[in-house]
């Protein structure tokens, strides 16, 4: 992004405060543009009225992220990569988390191929109220036979998740493109030998394309520049991912150098980067668990340092679960604490005799407590108190979790301790023990101090529930 203050964006807006974007003023809208929570398309006068066309174009140019954003696939599973503006996530946030593509080959038996693709498409890992997913399939042309490749592509395309076509042979890639029209796959890859033909394919079929030059940043930039000048817009960079020794160190350096140059304004290399942790399987590691661990470690390294899309092999849960969590970790927006709605939640099937607990609306806290309760079959009422998304210990210390706040949350949820339950008792988090006296006064209820860690709630319930009269 070339500008960083709302005032600079404001200059290009209609300045009528019409409110059509949902903001009260153009200045408020300008702030949303700057923190990238709003888009110019949200401003209908700017989009519709001809007189603003020039301003719109200029504003879009100024607001464009430093790293080009590229889309792969179509439909609801389509993915975006790139689009970053900073080198460190705390400076703003990273956008479009690293996308994980898993390999299949065009030499696989059809049944095995379909099963693997479905496993990739259906993978789910619960995290703070939603599911972390795997993103797509990379089809490797091991056969180098256009017909075989096309057949594999057809099978994979039926599942409907994004694809990367992997071959250096233009005839093979062309066959794949013909087999899956309008699927918007990513072509891998153009290199020093085949760039003309692959470039023409990218233009002809209007699909994103990877340019590849192993450990040669001049050559990589040359390919990217050549493609860009030819009118290819969606470019991804593959600087090579060496799996061991000095080669891996060099690969790591290359990722850093490319992204630093891109963020610093070298537009000719400001594209998303592809990492290939897959190469761990070429490093001669004999046992598959160790190879898988190494691949996962490589995936973590390149998720943190600027890999935007990667091709992986191991589908073992001990590989995929940490991989998707690492991408989530690095790409979570650090500006807003993750929070759940502040309200009364039912865990299991609570009755009027079930315990009532509260915790904070910090998503990590809430879901930890919730899953500790539900996974142990404890039916109960769980109130998420609005602490601005701060955890229990910190919010008690910082004053975001007080007896007043808890009472307020009960009132707003419409839950009546006198009517909705028979025991008029509330269990506080152990870390909020100091609120006990205050809570007794404010809620006119019995207060039980729970354990310091919600993991100990089952034992606590056994001892303390139902409460002694």
């Amino acid at each position, binding site marked *: 992004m070339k500008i960083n203050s709302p005032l600079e964006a404001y200059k290009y807006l209609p300045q009528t405060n019409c409110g059509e974007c949902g903001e009260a003023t153009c200045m408020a809208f300008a702030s949303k543009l700057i923190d990238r929570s709003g888009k110019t398309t949200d401003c209908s006068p700017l989009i519709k009225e001809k007189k603003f066309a020039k301003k719109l174009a200029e504003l879009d140019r100024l607001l464009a992220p430093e790293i080009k954003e590229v889309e792969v696939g179509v439909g609801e599973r389509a993915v975006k990569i790139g689009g970053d503006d900073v080198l*460190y*996530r*705390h400076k703003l946030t990273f956008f479009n988390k690293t996308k994980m593509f898993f*390999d299949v080959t065009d030499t696989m038996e059809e049944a095995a191929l379909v099963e693997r693709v479905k496993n990739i498409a259906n993978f789910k890992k*619960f*995290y703070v109220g939603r*599911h972390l997913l795997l993103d797509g399939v990379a089809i*490797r*042309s*091991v056969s180098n036979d256009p017909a075989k490749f096309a057949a594999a592509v057809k099978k994979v395309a039926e599942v409907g998740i994004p694809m990367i076509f992997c071959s250096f042979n*233009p005839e093979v890639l062309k066959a794949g493109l013909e087999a899956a029209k309008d699927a918007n796959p990513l072509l891998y890859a153009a290199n020093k030998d*085949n*760039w*003309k*033909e692959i*470039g*023409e*394919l990218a*233009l002809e079929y209007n699909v994103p394309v990877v340019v590849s030059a*192993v450990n040669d940043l*001049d050559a990589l*930039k*040359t390919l*990217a520049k*050549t493609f860009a*000048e030819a009118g290819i817009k969606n470019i991804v960079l593959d600087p*090579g*991912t*060496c*799996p*061991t*020794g*000095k*080669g891996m*160190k060099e690969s790591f350096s290359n990722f*850093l*150098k*490319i992204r*630093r*140059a891109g963020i610093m304004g070298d537009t000719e290399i400001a594209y998303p980067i592809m990492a290939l942790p*897959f*190469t761990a399987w*070429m*490093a001669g590691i004999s046992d598959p*668990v160790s190879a898988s*661990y*190494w691949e*996962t*470690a490589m995936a*973590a*390294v390149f998720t*943190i340092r600027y890999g935007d899309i990667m091709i992986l092999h191991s589908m*073992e*849960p001990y*590989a995929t679960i*940490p991989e998707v*969590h690492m991408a989530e*970790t*690095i790409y979570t927006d*650090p500006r807003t604490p993750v929070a759940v709605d502040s309200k009364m939640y039912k865990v299991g099937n609570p009755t009027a005799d079930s315990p009532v607990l509260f915790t904070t609306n910090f998503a990590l806290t809430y879901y930890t407590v919730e899953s500790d309760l539900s996974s142990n079959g404890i039916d109960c009422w769980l109130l998420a108190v609005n602490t601005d998304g701060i955890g229990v210990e910190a919010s008690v210390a910082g004053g975001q979790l007080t007896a007043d706040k808890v009472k307020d949350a009960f009132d707003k949820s419409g839950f009546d301790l006198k009517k909705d339950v028979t025991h008029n008792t509330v269990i506080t988090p152990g870390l909020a023990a100091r609120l006990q006296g205050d809570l007794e006064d404010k809620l006119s209820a019995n207060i039980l101090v729970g354990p310091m860690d919600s993991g100990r709630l089952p034992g606590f319930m056994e001892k303390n529930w139902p409460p002694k009269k």
Partner: protein
Amino acid sequence: MKYGAGFASAPNYSFHKGKNLEVKSVLFLYLSNSSKRKIYGKGEVYMAKKAKLSEMTDMFKDMDILSLEGVTIEGDVEIELNGLGGGFDPMLAALLGQENAVLAQHFARLASMFGVPVGIGAPAGVPAAAPAVSPALAAPKLKDLIPAKFDFENIAEWANQIQEVPIGNTSADGGSRGKRVMLGGEKALPFFPDAVMPNRNQVTIDVFDMRIGLAKAVKVNYDEVMDSPGEWAKKNVEKFNADMITIHLISTDPLIKDTPAKEAAKTVEEVLQAVDVPIAIGGSGNPQKDPEVLAKAAEVAEGERCLIASASLNLDYAKIAEAALKYDHDVLSWTQLDMNSQKELNRKLMKQCNVPRDRIIMDPTTAALGYGLDYAYTNMERIRLAALMGDDELTFPMSSGTTNAWGARESWMVSSPLKEDSDWGPREYRGPIWEIITGLSLAIAGNDLFMMMHPTSVAVLKQITQTLFGSIEAEPVDIANWIGAEV
């Protein structure tokens, strides 16, 4: 419009942006439908009259040129490539421009070698077009590579060096350790090309002063030594390649065994005798008891330069700092995911307690992958960046309680408590990788010392951090044909 195959080939060449390629010789063009015409000059063409290249473009625009044949070099040609800029017909550029210039240069060299004119463009003398391109693909948009040079600049603001802090005294330093561990000294983020990273990451493996509950995958490695801290420490060093040992005096907690400080100190002596690597000494985490326990431990370990863990804002850090200074140790400055608290505690240790800079290591708290690692990661990265840019209250090596990864349910639970989750697979493989990835991410954020537990985690973390550090030699792997790899 078609043209001679000889010009369609892309010779293998490279050159740098901003440099003009000058080719000196005279170029004759024989057009297929015209008599011999002489063309020469610097980016200009003389025919009946003086013409610019752009005019030539116009001239050729409507001509059905089948081929350019019999182009001959005779004498001097000067072609300035930067004259072939915007609006120029790429086809003609191809004919007269870059590739031709390179060919011309090539032949001009030959010419000067032989001292005679050398013809080019005669079909026999020209290599056939190399790539087998179907006509449909050979559109003009991708005619030639547009060369670009990649430039990289170091970060100018990284002007401050991280303090180097040694742990462990050898006999030369007045102690009995077999080696000394050196942490810190970085002038850039870890593994970055801006500056050489002077010291590799180090791993210290935990020992507890009593049998405790551990995740099953961890416990199987230590079960037979858990009643003997000395044996436990030995196993960590001899079998699991620990750089250091951390002895946790958890039995001193009044709520556990309330072991008196004096008795706990004996365990420290036992560990110091059992192994000769540097050691870290931890308390139970009880803020009332820890200062007393750690002070006593520091006393019995006098002169060994141990890492005393930890001083924090919610206990009597002054007592711990005082003992560390008196008995020649380092202090671990521990805060909870808050850079400003970290500055405050470091400042107090330096200003109030007079702890020298080369005796402070920071523990800004490690939250596990999936359980707040985003905070832990960014906290460390911010601390390290602030230090490199000159914040002297943060210029210290960092330590991570990586074992916190074992608190994540993904690392120890038999299976997911949630029905809709995909299968979590065998837990004995989940735990170690959870510890590896938690630690590895912090290694990249700036952490120097790792407090760990599982032997596999230790081995893999060491392997990957030392690979990025540059000290692992390996046969280069040819990844060029990864697409066809048999996996």
